[in-house]
């Protein structure tokens, strides 16, 4: 008989767990195959494509006029930007001069849309962090107001089809501008309130400070853009870096955080962006000139000259680019979208390495990914 001196060896195994595609917190249909050791993530594999709708192929099979209406669905939280990217690319090929009033209206709507997109992110991010019942409603109340504005000018709350090749679709009434102005006055106070609830909350700080640190190098290597990149300390904003539309005439700050960005920085970057957008909107409301809003006839036979063009806009999630080849017919010849969410998502596996499972949502949420934008 031998005396056992050692403890019996425990056989521990890694557990593979499927997060999604049906999961309450993956913001759509992302599937993450996680390899867990206890509660610590060892390996992550995002599985994409559950929402693939062949947006590029559809574009090649529709006329310009028809595709304009479809493109809002690529990033349904910021449809203005997808329309804008498409329109700019087409205008680059066509050499269309966009009327000044239309440019201002585009900036106005785009910045409103940026706010609404960030608001949705703010609400859902707090849900990801577990504040499920109270706070998330507040951003949504404000977002609702913006959606009402859009509904008034474009007819729908999310699929606007407002920014068109050559201009914008409809000239808003004077009352509409008044309402927007009231909103810009009220909104900063609301942001103060949310910051009072969230920003310095010790639990929130614990959940976000130092979590999901995205270094400059990694961010650049993966092609991360948008607030996520700027939170990592790289001052890269298309509105500044390669100004388009009337942005050169507007004064605004681009919030950049001068270090490696963690989750809290990304939160702060978006909060500050909302404040800046409000500033932009105020200026636009002051500066907007009278005049034409459309320089190209919008009808079923809308044609773009033959040629190639690329244009990008700074969407709430990063750089949204659109590359088009046109052969002069009423259908585009080739389409290619450069979607910010796709590259922002690809940075997720390195961020999740060796993090506990509770951090998955804190990190994933902070990247502000929208799945139709990833899968197109």
């Amino acid at each position, binding site marked *: 008989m031998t005396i056992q001196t050692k403890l019996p060896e425990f056989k521990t195994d890694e557990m593979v767990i499927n997060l999604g595609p049906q999961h309450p917190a993956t913001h759509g249909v992302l599937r993450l195959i996680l390899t867990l050791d206890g509660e610590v993530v060892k390996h992550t594999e995002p599985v994409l494509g559950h929402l693939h709708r062949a947006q590029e192929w559809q574009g090649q099979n529709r006329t310009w006029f028809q595709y304009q209406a479809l493109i809002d669905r690529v990033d349904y939280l910021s449809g203005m930007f997808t329309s804008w990217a498409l329109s700019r690319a087409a205008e680059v090929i066509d050499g269309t001069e966009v009327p000044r009033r239309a440019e201002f209206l585009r900036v106005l709507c785009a910045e409103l849309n940026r706010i609404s997109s960030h608001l949705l992110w703010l609400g859902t991010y707090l849900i990801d962090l577990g504040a499920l019942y109270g706070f998330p409603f507040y951003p949504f109340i404000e977002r609702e107001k913006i959606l009402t504005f859009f509904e008034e000018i474009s007819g*729908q709350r999310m*699929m606007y089809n407002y920014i068109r090749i050559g201009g914008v679709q409809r000239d808003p009434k004077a009352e509409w501008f008044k309402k927007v102005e009231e909103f810009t006055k009220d909104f900063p106070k609301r942001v103060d309130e949310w910051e009072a609830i969230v920003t310095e909350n010790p639990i929130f700080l614990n959940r976000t400070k130092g979590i999901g640190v995205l270094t400059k190098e990694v961010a650049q290597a993966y092609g991360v853009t948008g607030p996520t990149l700027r939170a990592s300390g790289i001052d890269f904003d298309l509105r500044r870096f390669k100004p388009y539309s009337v942005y050169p005439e507007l004064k605004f700050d681009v919030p950049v955080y001068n270090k490696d960005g963690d989750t809290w920085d990304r939160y702060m970057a978006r909060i500050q962006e909302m404040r800046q957008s409000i500033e932009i909107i105020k200026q636009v409301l002051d500066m907007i000139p009278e005049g034409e809003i459309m320089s190209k006839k919008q009808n079923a036979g809308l044609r773009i000259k033959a040629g190639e063009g690329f244009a990008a806009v700074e969407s709430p999630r990063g750089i949204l680019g659109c590359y088009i080849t046109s052969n002069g017919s009423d259908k585009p010849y080739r389409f290619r979208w450069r979607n910010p969410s796709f590259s922002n998502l690809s940075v997720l596996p390195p961020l999740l390495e060796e993090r506990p499972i509770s951090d998955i949502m804190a990190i994933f949420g902070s990247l502000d990914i929208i799945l139709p934008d990833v899968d197109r």
Partner: protein
Amino acid sequence: MFNLIGSAINGVKHALGGLYQVKRGLETVAMHTWREPTTEAYPDKAPELPPHFRGRLALTVNPETGENLCISCRQCERVCPDKCIEITANKSTETNKLELIDFKIDHGLCMFCGLCTEVCPTYCIINTNDFEMADYTRSSLIYDLKKLTLTQEESAYYFAAKEMPLPKPKPAKPAAPAAGAAAAKPAAEAKPTATVSPKPAPESAKAPETTADKPAKEVEKKESPSTDTPSVN
């Protein structure tokens, strides 16, 4: 020792700061109690929709004469990305003009992009403010000419609200052939028009939309749509 005391003091400071922030948050949330709810009492109170809202599609009639505005040019049919419009028309031998026989829109396919309304030369097809189209079968979402056509009042309302130029009066022409053609179709399959008319339409709120082929005077405003259908044809 000093280290320990220092860290203890720091800890207390930290804890108090955290508590203060939590208190601030709680207070801000509690203060929201005093603000009015933003909930829309939807089924009780219809939402106020802007005139350009892209809701259910419909065909307007001339608000003055009540005649159908569609000239069967098929622009809308061609532009529709979802191919959900189906127009039946034939060339009348007498006038050498297209006569609209039937107009079908499959609202189950439609994505309410509004492109068809943009290309229509006569402002005939429009997006109404109606969005309550829920139904039990897919086939009942296919609206035919009868269900699509608005009354004169409704048309007048939309022409005013959307600021569309009023149609020029055409040479007076009875709407009889179109009506007769529509009646010839098995229109009975369409279920009684239980759709809700556009909210802001003033008096015609209760009037069903199946009445375009007749002058609107004849149409009595009835409470129950189901009793109304037989009276049309």
